[in-house]
């Protein structure tokens, strides 16, 4: 075991210590006594300050505590300077520590290393505030993140800073929260998105301009190639073509061609005035054709004129009104044939009807004879029936109601005498007969009238036929006339084709004669027109004309030539105009593209810087996330390492020492499942085994204090001792005598057997005296220091040191 010792402390004007005190600490056991406010706590925290450069318990109470370190005298002219000087022994490295305190704070020289400082703050020095917390953890020992236990574990292990980092960095998880940490973030983001949109807009504008420029240039090139300028221009050199598009040479050429066209049209009109649209024939051939036509007509006349003329005379005899038509006319044939056929039909009809009438007259005569016979029979029948039979029947019917027996009511005779049935049957029979005769009379009368009607009709028809009956001579004439007409029709039909030929031949002859005479009058004008056209063509640099062509063909040919030239010039003019337009468009789009490019370049720089700024921020965010994640794993590691079985075993040992009769002992249990924040849980176990409730529920108040105190000592002992110091600030405030006695025994054990240097401050005089006795030196080299702090009103703090050394015990005498 190393002998690292706190040797001497000098404190000036620190907290409640006024003036300078000298506190020798060169003993394994240092007892500090003082009334409340005398400076015990200041003395102990002076050790922490000078060793670690800070006072954790003060810091937690007030982050600005550094400016409160200097002693505040009630008198004016308070001290403006303080210091702490600490000598140690056996430390590797520095053994002299010094802190200079002024209004602003403290300057320390040669503090402990970080890990040693943490060890000191966490496991060597138990300030009252921490003990208070230890007690508090039992009141509410759940494992919520903000429970006193969690706070204790957190602070004990120095995890509060880790927690602060973790919670403080929580906004990085959500961008919305992250934006709240600095307004600039949102601003830069907004700026970036604005620029992004703006840049996209410029890019679109540029693309559109580029596309339009390409289109304009390709249009320009197309138009220029139409003008015969084949060298393609690009956006680099398109400005140069503006001069070549200035002039308009096509206008003059075009107007020249228009003039020529008008002249040609005039020539054409002149030539057309006499020219025929028909074929151009030579005069001789025309004359020959005329001769041939005349000859053919003469031959025909020779053959057909005579018979045709006699036929006509015959027809004229029958049809005196069909005469005026010329010989051989097709029209004559048609009219004559139609008339002849009509006549023939009429004659046929009349003779046919006469024959029919004669036959019908004979039939009617027979029918009349039969009808008259029938009429006579009906009249005879009617005459046989009494005309009054109906009336008699009615009277007899009425009489039947007066007949009751066979005695006749009219003649009073007994009908039974006749032996011919009863009288009433007889009368009834008579009545039926009479009414039957009446019905028959009615039917006969109807028959008679219809018979009479038929006779009347037949007599009328007979009279009609007789009125139109022809004489026998008339009928024979009709038959003869029809035969003559038949003959004429067949003659006419036979000579029809010959008449047609004659008509065609006559027409041919007439046409040939007309052609010949027309040609003869035209020939002069054509020669003149062709000469004019030949001259015109040579003016147009056209080759010699084909003499076989008509003037019209020549004119059309020349017109086509001129129209081609005109349309070519028009195309050139249009192309030039298009080229000018395209050039103008290209200029506009070029400027637009340049403008977009300029804007893009200008804004891109700003955009990049915003983007980079955000990227840097994102890296910081990611780093913060890394830190945050690491906090979790470090915390879990620390807690897992700290709250282990060894701690529980030590704690149990210490607790049982101080509370041997308490069946329940406190313990930590670290949940094995991984949770967001790993937190140990405080439980109790029964000494004989089995789980108890939470310490707050299972332990008495005194034992809770014991549990708190022993927990701190266990934590001190559970790791290898970097600094073998235990500095306890009034740890037994609420302990009863029994516990204090056990506690004193524990301190003794720690001091004497485990060589811890123990500094303990108490305010109770009696306790101080007791501990002085209990903790006295037990062996050679063992020692006890006491320091009594006191302060008069307004006076400097006093520190009275005392030292006890070991001396041999002689009290015990053994009898044997």
């Amino acid at each position: 075991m190393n002998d690292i010792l706190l040797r001497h402390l000098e404190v000036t004007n620190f907290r409640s210590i006024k003036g300078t005190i000298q506190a020798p600490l060169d003993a394994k056991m240092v007892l500090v006594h003082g009334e409340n406010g005398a400076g015990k706590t200041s003395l102990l925290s002076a050790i922490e300050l000078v060793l670690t450069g800070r006072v954790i318990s003060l810091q937690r109470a007030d982050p600005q505590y550094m400016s409160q370190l200097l002693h505040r005298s009630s008198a004016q002219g308070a001290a403006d300077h303080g210091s702490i000087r600490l000598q140690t022994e056996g430390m590797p490295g520095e053994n002299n520590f010094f802190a200079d305190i002024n209004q602003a704070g403290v300057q320390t020289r040669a503090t402990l290393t970080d890990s040693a400082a943490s060890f000191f703050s966490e496991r060597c020095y138990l300030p009252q505030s921490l003990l208070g917390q230890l007690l508090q953890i039992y009141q509410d020992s759940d494992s919520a993140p903000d429970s006193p236990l969690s706070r204790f574990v957190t602070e004990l292990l120095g995890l509060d800073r880790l927690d602060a980092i973790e919670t403080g960095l929580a906004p990085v998880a959500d961008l919305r929260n992250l934006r709240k940490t600095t307004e600039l973030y949102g601003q830069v983001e907004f700026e970036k998105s604005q620029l992004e949109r703006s840049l996209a807009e410029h890019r679109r504008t540029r693309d559109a301009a580029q596309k339009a420029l390409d289109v304009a240039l390709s249009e320009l090139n197309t138009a220029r190639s139409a003008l015969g300028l084949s060298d393609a221009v690009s956006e680099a050199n398109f400005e140069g073509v503006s001069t070549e598009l200035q002039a308009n040479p096509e206008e003059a050429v075009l107007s020249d061609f228009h003039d020529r066209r008008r002249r040609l049209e005039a020539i054409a009109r002149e030539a057309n005035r006499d020219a025929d649209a028909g074929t151009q024939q030579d005069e001789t051939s025309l004359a020959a054709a005329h001769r041939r036509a005349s000859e053919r007509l003469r031959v025909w006349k020779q053959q057909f004129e005579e018979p045709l003329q006699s036929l006509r005379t015959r027809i004229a005899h029958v049809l005196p009104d069909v005469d005026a038509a010329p010989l051989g006319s097709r029209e004559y044939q048609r009219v004559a044939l139609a008339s002849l056929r009509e006549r023939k039909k009429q004659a046929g009809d009349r003779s046919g009807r006469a024959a029919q009438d004669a036959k019908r007259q004979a039939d009617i005569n027979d029918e009349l004879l039969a009808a008259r016979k029938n009429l006579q029979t009906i009249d005879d029948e009617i005459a046989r029936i009494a005309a009054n039979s109906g009336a008699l029947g009615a009277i007899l019917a009425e009489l039947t109601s007066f007949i009751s027996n066979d005695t006749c009511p009219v003649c009073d005779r007994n009908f039974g005498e006749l032996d011919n049935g009863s009288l009433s049957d007889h009368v009834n029979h008579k009545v039926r007969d009479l009414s039957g005769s009446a019905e028959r009379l009615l039917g006969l009368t109807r028959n008679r009238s219809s018979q009479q009607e038929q006779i009347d009709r037949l007599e009328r028809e007979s009279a009609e036929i007789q009125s139109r009956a022809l004489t026998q001579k008339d009928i024979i004439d009709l038959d003869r006339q029809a035969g003559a007409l038949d003959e004429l029709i067949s003659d006419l039909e036979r000579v029809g084709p010959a008449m047609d030929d004659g008509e065609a031949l006559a027409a041919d002859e007439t046409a040939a004669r007309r052609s010949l005479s027309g040609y003869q009058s035209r020939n002069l004008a054509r020669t003149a027109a062709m000469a004019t056209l030949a001259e015109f063509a040579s003016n147009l640099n056209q080759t010699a004309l084909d003499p076989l062509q008509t003037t019209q063909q020549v004119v059309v040919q020349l017109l086509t030539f001129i129209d081609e030239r005109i349309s070519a010039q028009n195309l050139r003019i249009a192309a030039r105009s298009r080229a000018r337009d395209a050039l103008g468009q290209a200029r506009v789009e070029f400027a637009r593209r340049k403008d977009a490019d300029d804007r893009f370049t200008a804004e891109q720089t700003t955009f990049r810087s915003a983007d980079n700024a955000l990227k840097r921020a994102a890296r910081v965010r990611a780093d913060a996330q890394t830190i945050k994640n690491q906090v979790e794993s470090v915390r879990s590691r620390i807690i897992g390492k700290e709250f282990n079985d060894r701690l529980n075993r030590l704690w149990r040992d210490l607790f049982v020492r101080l509370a041997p009769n308490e069946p329940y002992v406190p313990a930590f249990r670290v949940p094995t499942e991984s949770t967001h924040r790993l937190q140990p849980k405080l439980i109790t176990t029964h000494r004989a085994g089995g789980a108890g409730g939470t310490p707050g529920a299972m332990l008495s108040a005194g034992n809770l204090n014991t549990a708190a105190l022993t927990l701190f000592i266990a934590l001190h002992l559970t790791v290898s001792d970097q600094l073998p110091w235990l500095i306890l600030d009034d740890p037994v405030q609420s302990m009863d005598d029994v516990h204090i006695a056990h506690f004193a025994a524990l301190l003794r054990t720690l001091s004497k057997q485990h060589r811890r240097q123990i500094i303990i401050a108490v305010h109770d005089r009696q306790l101080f005296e007791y501990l002085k006795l209990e903790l006295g030196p037990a062996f050679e080299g063992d020692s006890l220091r006491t320091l009594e702090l006191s302060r008069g009103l307004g006076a400097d703090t006093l520190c009275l040191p005392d030292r006890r050394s070991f001396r041999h015990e002689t009290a015990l005498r053994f009898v044997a």
Partner: protein
Amino acid sequence: MTGSLLITGLVKRLKAAGYQELSTPFKVASVDFEFTAALRGTAGRGLDLVLIVDTATGDHGDRDATKVRQRVEALSRALDITGSRYVLTVILAGASLRGDIEALSATCRVLTIEHAALDRAGDPIGDAEAEALDDHIRVLLPLDLRAEDATEALVGDPLAELLSALPVTVDKELVRAVSEASINGEDAVTRALGARLEQVLSEEEQP
């Protein structure tokens, strides 16, 4: 070794823990004191005087609480008179009344043990029973730190451990600002984060 099994066991256990058995009776300030058993510590515990009272089967008036108290008080006074620094611990082996224990506690440290499961030689019959026996007199026994399985001391400062666990690529300025701010709580950390973000956001572009 004429005492009961429990006394035998206790003495055996204490001797194993470095105590010396004293022959009784012994004299302090010319007065004889008779106890069922008495032991004295050695080395660091040289001032520990342990007296065992057999309240169940003992002689010397051990079964009468008043007499026991009188005897212990007499011894205490005798030690005071001689200026001795011995620290007295009385172990009441066997059942005792609570009031009697409290009365005795005013004079000295009192431990009690009613029963222990021991074999004939006075040794605990098992580990659990040994532990139970120890629990009653633990304050007299040395601490078993079992240094060999003491965990390595932590790096110390959890913050330092965090810093050492962070990859080197992490933004150093952020780490510095955040760890400085952590002492002032989470809001300060958030502010530090915000400040660092603002810083990188407003950094001038390197040309």
